């Protein structure tokens, strides 16, 4: 990970200063009611979650998103219906508000049709990285305004799901390049797409090989090892990391009747693949990781680590903020990662200012 940002991870308890004393309370006071207050506030404000799916066409990205959120986010494109493959990579975003039991979630899904589809896929990750950095930039600009909004709208990408085609061999060079670049900027969860074309043993072997590849190339996917706070986390996350990443998933948005129950699945001549059946595929694991247990953590890591890294890099380059007595004087910033915002045309304005500054300095 970025050498600038070291653990402690975002959720570690605040350090206690030497002057704090620990006091015994003689009776019930009612401090724990603050948790209820927090909940009420959170429910009122609602939650935001931005997810990006990246992968070649035909791997079932749109179907997977529909399955995850059990709704028709997108019309999944059926093959052979004359939809032309896009010539260049274009990012499409769609936003929905979904509510469950009083909890409102504003969900934004960004799709990347055309990724890896061209003959020459060189630098196909640049538009994606540009998009991610643009969201960070937008947030940063909002944050440094004088009169800020009460609640800054959060469009930063919290999680990127990367679909690995089920070749059964190992990660391809395109995958490795992309993962290497993306893991430094955003949380990446790799999944094996269309896992119904692999048997269970093949899946395991494929998974091991992918894990080996990731280790060899020092790619840190979510959950990152360096952000584990305590022993419970480490146990939990090592389970995820060692045994289950990447998840082998199958997506489906049609329902079929199995044993008298209605289940989501894919119907084939040799049987019905149930999406939510753990014996068939690992979709429930992915869903639980993303939504039920680790959603807040994904957002925290994005806000506290990735966004801060971007901010440090950006401010070092352009010396935006005024210097106060607490100014941390850093040496001229780190060599920009390949995901430098100057590469994309979207951030032209940033380009101009940084150019001016570099002229100024020398």
């Amino acid at each position: 990970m970025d050498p600038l940002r070291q653990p402690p991870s975002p959720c570690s308890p605040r350090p206690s200063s030497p002057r704090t004393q620990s006091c015994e309370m003689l009776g019930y006071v009612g401090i724990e009611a603050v948790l209820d207050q927090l909940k009420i506030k959170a429910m009122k404000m609602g939650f935001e979650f931005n997810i990006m799916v990246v992968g070649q066409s035909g791997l079932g990205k749109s179907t997977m998103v529909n399955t995850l959120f059990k709704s028709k986010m997108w019309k999944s494109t059926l093959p052979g219906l004359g939809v032309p493959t896009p010539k260049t990579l274009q990012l499409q975003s769609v936003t929905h508000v979904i509510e469950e039991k009083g909890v409102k979630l504003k969900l934004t899904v960004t799709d990347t049709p055309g990724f890896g589809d061209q003959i020459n896929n060189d630098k196909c990750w640049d538009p994606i990285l540009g998009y991610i950095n643009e969201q960070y930039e937008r947030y940063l600009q909002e944050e440094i305004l004088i009169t800020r909004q009460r609640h800054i709208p959060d469009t930063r990408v919290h999680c990127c799901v990367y679909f690995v085609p089920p070749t059964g061999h190992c990660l391809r060079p395109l995958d490795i390049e992309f993962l290497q670049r993306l893991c430094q900027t955003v949380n990446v969860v790799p999944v094996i797409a269309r896992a119904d074309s692999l048997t269970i043993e093949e899946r395991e072997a494929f998974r091991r090989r992918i894990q080996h590849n990731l280790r060899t190339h020092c790619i840190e996917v979510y959950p990152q090892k360096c952000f584990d706070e305590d022993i419970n986390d480490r146990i939990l996350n090592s389970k995820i990391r060692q045994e289950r990443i990447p998840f082998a998933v199958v997506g489906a948005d049609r329902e079929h009747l199995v044993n008298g129950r209605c289940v989501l699945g894919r119907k084939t001549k040799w049987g019905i693949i149930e999406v939510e059946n753990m014996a068939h595929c690992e979709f429930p694991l992915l869903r639980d990781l993303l939504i039920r247990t680790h959603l807040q953590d994904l957002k925290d890591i994005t806000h506290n680590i990735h966004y801060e890294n971007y901010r440090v890099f950006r401010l070092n380059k352009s010396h935006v903020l005024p210097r106060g007595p607490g100014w941390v004087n850093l040496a001229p910033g780190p060599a920009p990662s390949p995901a430098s915002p100057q590469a994309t045309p979207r951030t032209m304005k940033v380009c101009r200012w940084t150019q001016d500054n570099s002229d100024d300095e020398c």
Partner: protein
Amino acid sequence: MGRAAHCSAFAVVKGQGLPRRRQCNHVSRRDRTGERPAGGLRQLPRWDSLHHELFQSHMAAKTAGMPSQLPDSEQNQKKDNTRSLTMSGHVGFESLPDQLVNRSIQQGFCFNILCVGETGIGKSTLIDTLFNTNFEDHESSHFYPHVRLKAQTYELQESNVRLKLTIVNTVGFGDQINKEESYQPIVDYIDAQFEAYLQEELKIKRSLFNYHDSRIHVCLYFISPTGHSLKTLDLLTMKSLDSKVNIIPVIAKADAISKTELQKFKIKLMSELVSNGVQIYQFPTDDETIAKINASMNGHLPFAVVGSMDEVKVGNKMVKARQYPWGIVQVENENHCDFVKLREMLLCTNMEDLRDQTHTRHYELYRRCKLEELGFTDVGPEHEPLSLQETYEAKRHEFYGERQRKEEEMKQTFVQRVKEKEAMLKEAERELQAKFEHLKRVHQEERMKLEEKRRLLEEEIIAFSKKKATSEIHQNQPFMVPGSSLRKDKDRKKEPGYRFELLCFDVRACETSDGRTDTEEGRRAPRPRGGLGSVWRRSQGL
């Protein structure tokens, strides 16, 4: 704890849905004095416990995991310009608030209270009573010359909630004879905390999630129970603090006022505050669950409180109370004082809102004022949105230009001074040279004069010696009478034998104008040459 909650309190039971959330019940909590409310928080399921069969390497053919529920149809919501979606099944993100809460639990909470009031009005006692603990503070003296603020931090823990509580006390408030400067230290302290947070926020490499937030979240203002009205000092202090911090006024030592007087006093106080434009903190009424109770509490402001940590036996229970000969004032009895209301409002219902208000209103106001002071604006002169970046760049250029100019100026002055100094030195040098020349000339003249004198003297010496030689010759020839007398004269003159030798001749003698030989003169009588250094020695004999 991290991302995992304790698994023991939660178990996945097939066929049942997820357990219900605990209801937030204020009334019931008031009755409990020493016990924790039953029914813990809904615990968050651990990721691996949701599929614990998998991780116990228990391969079963039956379905594990969450049972698929019958499709629910949710209500359509129209929300601004984003579409809403109906879901055809249970997704499971209702656990989001719990995830958030768990993270907060793990981080711990932070709450800072500022107590402003005269010495001896009962601030420390009230805080002790509020948090049901003894914070070990001794009585402060009345004789401080200035108002000081003393901050102390304590770590409290209740069930799984850790609270870092900071109590800031004003020491010496209202004790001075001249109270004009009493409230300034308080305002400065609050501003200093905002400033520290702002500096942290503006740093490049910042760690806001680790930052110990020391901004004051609430100010308890203690009003002394005179029964009449607000003191001027109180009014002034509250007016200067109301835009910087949430103020909750309380009437201290409320057992000194009777019930009827109390009612009138409260009305008088509120009307005075309103008429002077002091904005005290109003409990929020926008959320339905707490709107009613907050609204009713708003009508009871300011709270009349009594603080005590001493226990007195009433009936068959020990309660916190103050014992008088005429009765016992129970702290937690609603009929006696409003202490329970205060604790309820401050801690149980609105702690989060107080923190929120501090951050989003007071801190933002401070930040805006501070940045505007530095010259940053959001809108340029043509009313187009101006980014901080552009303003900063413009300012930087401006300052840079000014710096250049100043540097030039200084250079100019420096060069000028150098020139002046040089000229002066040259002048001095020339003068010195002239003087030297002059002196040299004088010296030269002197020398010449002396040379002249010497020559003359030598000539005279030669002449004299010639004369002497000739006179001796003359004496040797006629020998007798004419010369003898002369000789006798000479002898006689010589006999006593004074012969004056010129030992040294001083150049300094400028009055050698007569030029006569000294030897002749000296023979007759020693005549000092005006004390100018000629040394004559009288010697005997020839």
